């Protein structure tokens, strides 16, 4: 039967609700309101993990966010949750957790052999050892390191939990609900300011929950409860617990992670597991408190050695004893508070105070309680492997260099207090230039860069009276600037015990002949000797020492180790701490799950999905869709058991033989108006536009200033000063911005307006030799003959009651038309085309057939206009005007762009007329040449030519102009294929372009 460490009464837990949970496969009980840590300690479980490098046994060191050891892997809601701090995880019925970083189990850990080999694991060990030979990395070093090191293991499954994002705006964001947070929030809220008050724990009140103080006529805890309930009732205040403000970004944007359901057995269907808040605050109040500093001595990482404030918290909040024979090792008065709490419930602590002769109210009280206090005493080393069993203690000389009166005393825990470190992470992230405060041996915020104020112990103020006074005042002052209201608040009287000065001493010297490990960074296993070694090896900058030794680089970000590390460097280097400076604090303050960062933007929600007005018709008619940018487009329409290849071949063939219809709604459309529109187009496109008559369309190519093709498309002159431009689906937003850039910034004198009309029009391309028959039946009143509506002609018509724009343009290379109607009429138009086209054997065709048609015609598209090619490369040089200037023209005379053997688009046909050439294949001269085989270019697009019934590809190759007729090879290392090919003209079908004009 395990010993029980739960007191019969006391604490803030709900003793009426017993909760069962599992740790490392064993069943335990706790109470509602416990954390996993407090429940394990109540059951006498101190061994929870193994350390990162040496695999030494580790227990609990803290009681909250600063915990470096107790990292566990959770199974919850059929998901694994790695690297959860047991000190923050609230207990729920059925909780299932296990230790990490130990194999095969926490009691017998093979990696612990590193502990005995620790001579081989000094600072920079990995850098020094695993440098060569290179091949050893993959086969030997890495697998061993991976197996031995690392924390929890992430799930490889899709995370089914729901995560959300929320945006908020407020006057004051206050991080932390200790006395300074509560007071400033209260004052600001009373002035009518919109306040968000965030607490990372489940309980509000911070230090007020565990300290023996009186505010007004209430205990600290009662006062906190009353303020919180009053704040919660105010409409201008948002109060959030389990919410960590972890990042302070530019222009007062802060990000907070709320653990909405982590404390529950499972997440409800529509409730998120976690929620990320993006908060833009007028003013930020940082009331994040302070974290107790460890004292450093031999084996100070043994389970049972923990912060004295944590021991007090387990006692006062959870009614749990961390030990029954405690040693309190302190250099300041805080340790006495813990000692008195132990004494009050009948446990006799021994206090070792490094100071010689301190005097204060609290020490007097401890003496009156007959607590055994030894002044000028230190713990030299903890003894006991999996749990502290005793301590070697000694008297220390006044100069703190000589140990004497060594003795060993029995104990089962050692509670350490090395004074307090203000939590300045958020202030530092905001750009605050922090300063070193000598009286407290720590950094505090100084000059603000953004609108932030740090209050209370986070600002190095350790008395409640001053904290409350300054916080009430600041809350009033900050909110008054925003709301112009001032509500008088009387500051309550405070009763608290005054403290005496702390001792700057923090690191116990090694006794003669002993070589104990004295740890600074408990999570990354960085010991005093590692820092000393790094300094001996010449590392000076604290940033370098940090990276070389990994001090403060673990997931706890050195919350308990930073300052002691700095003190050590300053001692060895004989500098003062402010000269050494602290390393940069970066967000996040505590680890944030990837799920919370991603939020709801997963799977199909990772980008918006746009559907054409004809989408549901496509769906009903067995379309298989493909992502085209943000659009969903039919790739092919499946008939029977057809696959992609068979269906697209059938669809393309039907366009060549009869007539097909394709949804082209997704094409980008830009409406251009104004008297200078023609002049503008003339500058934007490479060809001439001034003489395009009304009612005519023209194909155009536009460049970037560096001469690279940006986009292509047709633009139609609707009326004198009105043009309708089309762009490719993918480039539509970029082209609009491009046009706006030149109109607004470069040529503001041009009187032109542009606006996107992509979503205003639904489009259908009717293509094939019988397309005119279909069009004629759609518009019986119009003359759509070759003379009435010639190639590149435009007219408007009435399609069974709806207005339509008819463009005679072709992407397929066949006789073709594009009909546009207002989006709302899109489906109506589509159904009419299908109905009327029936007698001409019309079939809808998807993007795959569309590609086939354009590839075998040699029409370049996105795969050739890939941001690396100029007009010449695409055989578009005929469209480049020699007479006028246009965007990017000057670049086209660049030497590389006019080389005689410049790359050019060509057609590629496999010699066997059977083997399809994978897109992306290299074109090479000699398939057997030594690697790296010099490549001539690459295959940009491939299809199965329906005209010739064999594979056909486009490629952009060096000197393409002179390569026609050559026998070369297409090589695809990815598909492991080498295909003998012949280079042919890129215009494989209808090279003279007669069909579109027929």
């Amino acid at each position, binding site marked *: 039967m395990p010993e029980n460490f739960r007191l019969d009464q006391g604490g803030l837990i709900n003793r009426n609700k017993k909760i069962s949970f599992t740790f490392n496969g064993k069943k335990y009980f706790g109470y509602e309101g416990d954390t996993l840590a407090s429940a394990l300690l109540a059951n006498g479980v101190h061994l929870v993990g193994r350390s990162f490098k040496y695999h030494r046994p580790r227990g609990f060191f803290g009681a909250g966010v600063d915990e470096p050891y107790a990292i566990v892997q959770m199974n919850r809601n059929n998901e694994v949750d790695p690297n959860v701090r047991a000190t923050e995880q609230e207990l729920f019925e059925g909780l299932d957790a296990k230790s990490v970083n130990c194999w095969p189990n926490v009691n017998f850990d093979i990696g612990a052999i590193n502990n005995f080999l620790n001579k081989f694991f000094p600072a920079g060990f990995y850098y020094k050892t695993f440098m060569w030979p290179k091949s050893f990395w993959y086969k030997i070093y890495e697998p061993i390191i991976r197996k031995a090191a690392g924390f929890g293991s992430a799930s490889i499954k899709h995370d089914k939990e729901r995560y959300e994002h929320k945006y908020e705006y407020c006057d004051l964001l206050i991080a932390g609900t200790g006395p300074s947070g509560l007071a400033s929030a209260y004052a600001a809220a009373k002035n009518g300011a919109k306040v968000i008050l965030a607490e990372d724990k489940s309980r509000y009140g911070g230090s007020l929950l565990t300290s023996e103080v009186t505010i007004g006529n209430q205990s600290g805890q009662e006062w906190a409860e009353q303020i919180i309930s009053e704040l919660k009732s105010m409409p201008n205040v948002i109060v959030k617990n389990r919410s960590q403000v972890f990042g302070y*970004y*530019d*222009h*007062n*944007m802060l990000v907070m992670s709320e653990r909405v359901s982590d404390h529950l057995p499972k997440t409800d269907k529509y409730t998120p597991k976690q929620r990320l808040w*993006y908060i*833009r605050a007028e003013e930020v109040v940082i009331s994040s408190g302070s974290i107790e500093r460890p004292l450093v001595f031999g084996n100070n990482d043994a389970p049972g050695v923990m912060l004295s404030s944590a021991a007090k918290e387990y006692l006062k909040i959870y009614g749990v004893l961390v030990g029954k024979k405690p040693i309190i090792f302190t250099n300041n008065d805080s340790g006495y508070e813990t000692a008195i709490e132990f004494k009050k419930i009948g446990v006799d602590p021994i206090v070792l105070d490094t100071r010689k002769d301190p005097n204060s109210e609290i020490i007097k009280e401890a003496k009156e309680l007959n607590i055994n206090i030894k002044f000028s005493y230190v713990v030299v080393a903890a003894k006991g492997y999996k749990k502290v069993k005793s301590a070697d203690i000694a008297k220390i000389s006044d100069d703190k260099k000589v140990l004497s009166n060594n003795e060993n005393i029995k104990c089962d825990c050692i509670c350490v207090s090395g004074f307090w470190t203000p939590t300045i992470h958020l202030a530092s992230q905001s*750009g605050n230039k922090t300063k070193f405060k000598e009286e407290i041996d720590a950094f505090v915020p100084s000059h603000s*860069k953004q609108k932030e104020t740090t209050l209370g112990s986070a600002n190095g103020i350790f008395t409640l009276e001053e904290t409350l006074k300054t916080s009430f005042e600041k809350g009033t002052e900050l909110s008054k600037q925003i709301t112009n209201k001032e509500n008088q608040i009387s500051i309550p009287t405070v009763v608290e015990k005054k403290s005496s000065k702390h001792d700057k001493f923090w690191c116990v010297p090694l006794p003669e002949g002993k070589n104990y490990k004295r740890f600074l960074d408990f999570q990354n296993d960085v010991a005093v000797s590692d820092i000393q070694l790094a300094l001996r090896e010449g590392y000076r900058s604290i940033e370098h020492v940090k990276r070389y030794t990994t001090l403060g680089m673990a997931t706890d970000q050195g919350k308990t180790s930073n300052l002691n590390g700095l003190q050590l460097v300053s001692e060895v280097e004989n500098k003062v701490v402010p000269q050494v400076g602290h390393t940069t604090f970066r967000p996040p303050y505590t680890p944030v799950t990837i799920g919370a960062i991603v939020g709801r933007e997963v799977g199909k929600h990772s980008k918006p999905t746009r559907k054409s007005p004809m989408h549901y018709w496509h769906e009903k008619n067995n379309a298989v869709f493909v992502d085209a940018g943000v659009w969903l487009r039919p790739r092919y329409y499946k008939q029977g058991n057809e696959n992609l290849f068979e269906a697209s071949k059938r669809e393309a063939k039907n366009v060549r033989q009869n007539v097909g219809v394709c949804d082209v709604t997704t094409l980008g459309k830009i409406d251009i108006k104004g008297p200078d529109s023609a002049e503008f187009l003339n*500058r934007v496109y490479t060809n001439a536009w001034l003489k395009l008559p009304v009612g005519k369309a023209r194909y155009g190519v536009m460049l970037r*200033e*560096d001469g690279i093709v940006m986009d292509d498309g047709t633009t139609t002159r609707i009326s004198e000063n009105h043009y309708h431009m089309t762009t490719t689906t993918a480039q539509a*937003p970029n082209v609009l*911005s491009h046009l*706006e*850039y030149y109109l*607004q*910034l*470069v040529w*503001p004198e041009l009187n032109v307006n542009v606006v996107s009309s992509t979503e205003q029009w639904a489009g259908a391309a009717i293509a094939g030799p019988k397309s005119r028959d279909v069009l004629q039946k759609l518009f019986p009143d119009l003359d759509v003959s070759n003379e009435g509506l010639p190639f590149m002609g435009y007219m408007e018509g009435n399609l069974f009651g709806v207005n339509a724009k008819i463009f005679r343009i072709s992407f397929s290379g066949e006789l073709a038309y594009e009909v546009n109607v207002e989006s709302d009429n899109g489906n109506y138009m589509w159904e009419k085309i299908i109905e009327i086209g029936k007698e001409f054997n019309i079939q809808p065709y998807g993007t795959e057939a569309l590609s086939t048609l354009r590839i075998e015609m040699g029409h370049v598209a996105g795969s050739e206009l890939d941001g690396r090619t100029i007009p010449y490369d695409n055989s578009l040089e005929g469209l480049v005007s020699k007479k*006028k*200037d246009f965007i990017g023209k*000057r*670049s086209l005379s*660049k030497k590389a762009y006019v080389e005689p053997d410049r790359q050019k688009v060509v057609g590629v046909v496999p010699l066997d007329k059977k083997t399809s050439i994978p897109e992306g294949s290299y074109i090479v001269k000699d398939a057997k040449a030594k690697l790296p085989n010099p490549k001539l270019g690459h295959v940009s697009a491939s299809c199965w030519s329906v005209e010739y019934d064999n594979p056909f590809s486009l490629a952009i190759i060096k000197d393409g102009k002179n390569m026609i007729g050559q026998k070369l090879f297409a090589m695809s290392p990815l598909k492991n294929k080498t295909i003998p090919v012949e280079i042919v003209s890129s215009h494989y079908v209808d090279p003279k372009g007669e069909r579109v004009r027929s």
Partner: protein
Amino acid sequence: MLYILCPHCGLRPQTEFSYGGDATVKRPELNKEISDQDWDNFVYLRKSPRGKHLELWQHISGCRQWIKVERDTLTHEIFTTYKASENT
């Protein structure tokens, strides 16, 4: 995330804008002779100043206007914003 004062719309989060580079670059005039060097400098050469920088942003999810923003590249402080037509 920056907070940018659009001179047309007011204070808006950075996510509504897209970045457009150095606002001090002036495109050479059309139809004017220009040396290879000068053209290359215009197309490719940009300063990367530490400190105050006048840059272009477009309010793409708002008024779609290109604006000029005087920003400190080190501290991200934004001093003044101008309409495209305004002199800086």
